């Protein structure tokens, strides 16, 4: 087996204030040591986000997209998790080498996270206002009264109606959409540079989903934050992302600017995903279905992890792990930001 650890992306980035990208993940590996063996959840992931930029990380369950985010936040349970290799650079500093105290200062204040399930992320026995104000009391040492005023201001900002009256309410008194707004308010409280949103709208109804995504995009522009949006929903991504990284079995299999990806996928997995979702504006006959099942993380297939499910797989796919190649036009013109981890990316993108 050849090693194909991809080099960090040499893609032009929107730079953070000090020249480099805001956050850069380099060759990150995460394993889980379980009774049944070592589950390789993340196997060499590289990505970066600049200020004001939205990176969507797309993948199915088990693709390692959430584990990567948890590694960035430093909220993986270790053990069983282990990070054998890799760097997570925040403004050029490797967070994996920082002390617990240093990381804690970054977490919440500089990088904040929004979870899928707002109800279980909020403490049910404390009022929403108290939980929002807590951030200010702990990190900025504000008085109780000032913290409450700040909490109301935040609730206004995420457009919770009647914030002043509702500041003393408890999480269960809010609807799902409102709770997700509170989570967003909490993440925004200390005006972080980067927000990681892990499936922020999956648990919400369609009409509420649209409201929440709009709010998130608007706040991102207002504060010029970096946003990592983790999702399995190709539709949600299409709306807000600038660039997309598609993950499969712990690796990035394709990166592309958002419009490009949908028009001309360069990896058979991405193509399969796009073909397998029914469209609202078209009534197709039979859906294309990717055959088989996602791989076993304890026993990832040799070569390209997607090869057992891939309609185009050749012998080389079963033996050699494909590197994340730069993708180019038919005439050799560079396609900035586009990379594909497929031996046959040319055939895939150019037909």
């Amino acid at each position, binding site marked *: 087996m050849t090693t194909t650890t991809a080099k960090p992306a040499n893609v032009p980035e929107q730079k953070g204030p000090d020249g480099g990208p805001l956050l850069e993940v380099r060759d990150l590996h995460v394993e889980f*040591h*379980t009774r049944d063996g070592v589950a390789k*959840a993340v196997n060499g992931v590289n990505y970066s986000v600049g200020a004001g930029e939205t990176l969507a990380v797309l993948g199915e*369950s088990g693709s*390692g997209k*959430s584990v990567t985010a948890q590694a960035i936040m430093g909220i993986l349970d270790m053990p069983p998790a282990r990070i054998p290799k890799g760097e997570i650079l925040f403004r050029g500093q490797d967070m994996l080498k920082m002390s617990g105290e240093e990381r804690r200062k970054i977490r919440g204040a500089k990088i904040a996270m929004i*979870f899928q399930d707002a109800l279980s*992320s*909020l403490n049910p026995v404390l009022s929403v206002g108290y939980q929002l104000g807590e951030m200010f009391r702990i990190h900025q040492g504000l008085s109780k009264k000032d913290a409450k005023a700040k909490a109301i201001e935040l609730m206004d900002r995420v457009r919770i109606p009647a914030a002043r009256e509702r500041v003393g309410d408890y999480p269960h008194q809010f609807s799902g959409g409102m709770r997700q707004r509170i989570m967003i308010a909490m993440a925004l409280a200390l005006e972080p540079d980067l927000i990681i949103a892990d499936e922020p709208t999956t648990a919400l109804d369609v009409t509420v989903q649209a409201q929440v995504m709009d709010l998130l995009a608007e706040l991102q522009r207002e504060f010029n934050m970096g946003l990592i949006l983790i999702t399995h929903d190709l539709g949600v991504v299409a709306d807000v992302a600038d660039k997309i990284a598609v993950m499969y079995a712990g690796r990035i299999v394709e990166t592309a600017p958002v419009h490009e990806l949908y028009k001309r996928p360069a990896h058979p997995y991405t193509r399969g995903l796009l073909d397998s979702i029914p469209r609202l504006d078209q009534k197709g006959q039979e859906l294309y279905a990717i055959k088989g099942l996602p791989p076993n993380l304890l026993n990832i297939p040799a070569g390209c992890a997607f090869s057992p499910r891939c309609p185009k797989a050749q012998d080389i796919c079963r033996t050699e792990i494909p590197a994340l190649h730069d993708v180019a036009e038919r005439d050799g013109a560079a396609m900035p930001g586009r990379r594909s981890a497929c031996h046959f990316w040319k055939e895939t993108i150019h037909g």
Partner: protein
Amino acid sequence: MPDNKSPQVTPSSVAGAGPAVTGGLADTAAAGVAVAAELAAGTDKQTSTEKARSLGQDAWRELRRSWLFWASGILLVLLILMAAWPTLFTDVDPRQADLRNHYLTGPQWSHFFQADWFGYNVQGQSVYARTVHGARASIIVGVCVTLAVTLVGGIVGMLAGYFGGWLDTVLSRLTDVFFGIPLLLGGLVLLQAFTNRTIWTVTFALTAFGWMQIARVMRGAVITQKEADFVTAARALGAGTGRILFRHILPNVLGPVIVVATIALGGYIATEATLSYLGIGLKDPTVSWGVDISASQKDLRDGPHALLMPAGFLSLTVLAFILLGDAVRDALDPKLR
């Protein structure tokens, strides 16, 4: 920031009593590993070498790795052997007394398995032989009370949980009333009514005041399982109450009940000894640890071995059952760890 959502790596669906439902959407490592475990077989329509494993087999796999289980298990096997065939361990008659030669003789620690190993008591009886023979009463009472309590409490809890409504109200209040009576006090009072107290009367008394905990556990578990989708699915197929209760709900609630029962077993043994010590449980010609502790208390200063040996075995037995319960709980519900 609430630091939740840390991935549970124990593949819950492999050994878990209840698979953690994150929905296929949640992308936690758990989901990945869970998928992984099932996928060891490969894709659909592909023959596989993986054997069918029931949850019981998974629990056994888990148990095998637990030192708690082996330690308590070996201890319990010895104790049960002792209860069933005491003559395997000693051929000395525990009731044979020789006051002239042996009055409160101290233990001879090097005389393994001999009559004088643990010394003699105030009656000149072999403490070793009495300790070996005393295991029977304790273990029979412990096991029988546990079985009876599981049966009574299980039925009450199941009826209350499954049928709900007024039946639940009545049974739950009845449980509460009994909870108000301490096991020991209840046993004391009830046993007063019997002049001839045997192992069976003690069992009856302890059961009468000990079934409530199981009833509560059972009721809670049944209420949870009753709402489970697979129960709804069975109802949708037209399954009757009996089938739903015994085929679908019961196998899924046994786990917590077994755990509670195993842990409680130790407590019943201790209670039996306490009753006997108080002179209200088993009585002299019956050989029992409680009876012996009671009989030798007044000689604590002259011959402490006569009290400490049965007391030590009693503690060891109780401990073994509690540890076993812990190990079983861990095996049945890896999420607790």
